């Protein structure tokens, strides 16, 4: 059975945490919204109290007008009109569907207001309808008291809901925090593994690109460098490029005479001596066996040839004994080729400079041959 991939696990965890957070937010928003609605939504009737209070105010406004009607009979009509208006307004603000549904006293009180109104409209001031007035005022008291209780109940419910919200919010915060930490740890572990893997990859690449014996670059690196070089050549950069191909003369015989350990040491000494001569812009590669390749950038033909001559001298100066060499010491042969303003292939470049090295070998070794030197000069 295959294990699920790590990437899928991370995506799953991420999605899970998003779902949890989203659900919590939604849940709390809805619950909190409900709590708020319970307090502020007029549908629950909290604000209805304003209607009953206004009705009560208008009704009470009528009382001093009644007294005035008795005291000032001359203004009777105007006062009566004003009293009737106040009573109509009192009636209107109590004539609310919710009151009529919820409080049995409201329809009775509405009838009482109408009765008082008709009584006054018909010109009766006395007797004062104490029972009717008392019933209406008692009804207002009942409505206001119940509305206050309703308000208190709703606020209490909202507080309980808010407390529950707070509890679940805390649970949610802890859960999300835990998920966040877990996710971070997993990502951190993945990052470290990735980093380690990258370092190992670079180390392997370095090893593949470096010749461990001579500390020069490998043949693989040479091919890569030449490919990069010809990729842009000559259109995108036209610095002077010089290629140097050299090998150690009669090196097989040297190995046969002194053994491979001495041969390896000779290779190390020669490449170290040549490395000291090379400028920072030059790259030094081991082509294979005792053959080496150098790429010079930004140096003229004369500079590259002069450097090749100094390389010959540097190897001679090492004075490594070689009985099979005509000079009695280890020497080297060098081919130098300067790139022209045209396109090349990697194999063609190697072939060009190899041919020059061959010419140097053919003409007695221990010398430098470049493409401008004829066979006779060599």
């Amino acid at each position: 059975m295959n294990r699920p991939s790590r990437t899928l696990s991370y995506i799953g965890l991420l999605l899970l945490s998003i779902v949890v957070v989203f659900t919590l937010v939604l849940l709390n928003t809805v619950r909190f919204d409900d709590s708020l609605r319970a307090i502020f939504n007029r549908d629950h009737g909290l604000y209805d109290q304003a209607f009953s209070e206004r009705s009560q105010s208008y009704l009470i406004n009528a009382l001093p007008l009644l007294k005035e009607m008795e005291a000032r009979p001359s203004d009777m009509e105007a006062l009566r009109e004003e009293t009737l208006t106040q009573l109509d307004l009192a009636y209107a603000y109590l004539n609310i569907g919710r009151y009529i549904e919820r409080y049995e006293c409201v329809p009775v009180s509405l009838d009482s207001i109408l009765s008082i109104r008709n009584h006054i409209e018909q010109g009766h001031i006395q007797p004062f309808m104490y029972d009717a007035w008392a019933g209406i005022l008692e009804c207002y008291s009942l409505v206001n008291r119940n509305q206050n209780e309703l308000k208190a109940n709703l606020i209490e419910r909202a507080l309980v809901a808010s407390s529950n919200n707070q509890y679940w919010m805390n649970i949610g915060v802890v859960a999300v925090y835990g998920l966040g930490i877990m996710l971070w740890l997993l990502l951190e572990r993945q990052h470290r593994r990735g980093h380690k893997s990258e370092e190992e990859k670079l180390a392997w690449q370095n090893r593949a690109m470096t010749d461990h014996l001579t500390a020069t670059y490998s043949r693989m690196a040479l091919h890569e460098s030449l490919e990069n070089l010809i990729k842009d050549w000559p259109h995108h950069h036209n610095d002077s490029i010089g290629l140097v191909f050299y090998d150690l003369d009669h090196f097989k015989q040297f190995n046969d005479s002194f053994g491979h350990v001495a041969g390896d040491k000779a290779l190390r000494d020669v490449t170290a001596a040549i490395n000291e001569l090379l400028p920072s812009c030059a790259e030094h590669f081991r082509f294979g066996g005792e053959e080496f390749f150098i790429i010079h950038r930004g140096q003229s033909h004369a500079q590259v040839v002069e450097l090749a001559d100094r390389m010959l001298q540097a190897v001679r100066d090492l004075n490594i004994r070689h009985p099979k060499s005509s000079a009695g010491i280890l020497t080297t042969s060098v081919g130098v080729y300067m790139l022209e303003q045209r396109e090349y292939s990697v194999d063609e470049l190697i072939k060009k400079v190899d041919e020059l090295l061959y010419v140097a070998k053919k003409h007695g070794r221990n010398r430098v041959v470049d493409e401008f030197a004829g066979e006779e000069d060599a």
Partner: protein
Amino acid sequence: MKTIMVFCCIGLMALSSHVSALTLVSEDKEISLTTAQLVEQANYTHEMYGPFRRQTTLFEGFILTDFLKQQLGVNATSVRFIAFDGYDLTLNNVDQRKLMLVVKENGEVLTVRNHGPLRLIETDLGGHDPKNISLFDDWVWMIKRIEVVDE
């Protein structure tokens, strides 16, 4: 004596139907209409849930903008409403809302006691819950004066 009183009451009621119920104002133009005139001219009906009645109600009256156009000859956009209880509200963009002036409710002529003689309602509730009366702040009861206040 009782007969005389009844006669007086009938007389007063008959008289009251000719007392101005609504004043319409636009710039220098002012019109007064009685309840009887309003009821007689009502030309639009609409049935919907009446949030203050807690039941489905048949409203009769006028489309606000049509009524103002008919009475004052103006295409009103901003209108001020003044009610008998002193409530004063100005609404803008009335031409873009479905506002109705109600004079009868379930066949009964509105008086102050049932939030008349003229009431402003909104016939298109825009998907809002009609049982939630907090959404009906723009309903104006007991209108006695309407002023077109377009600039």
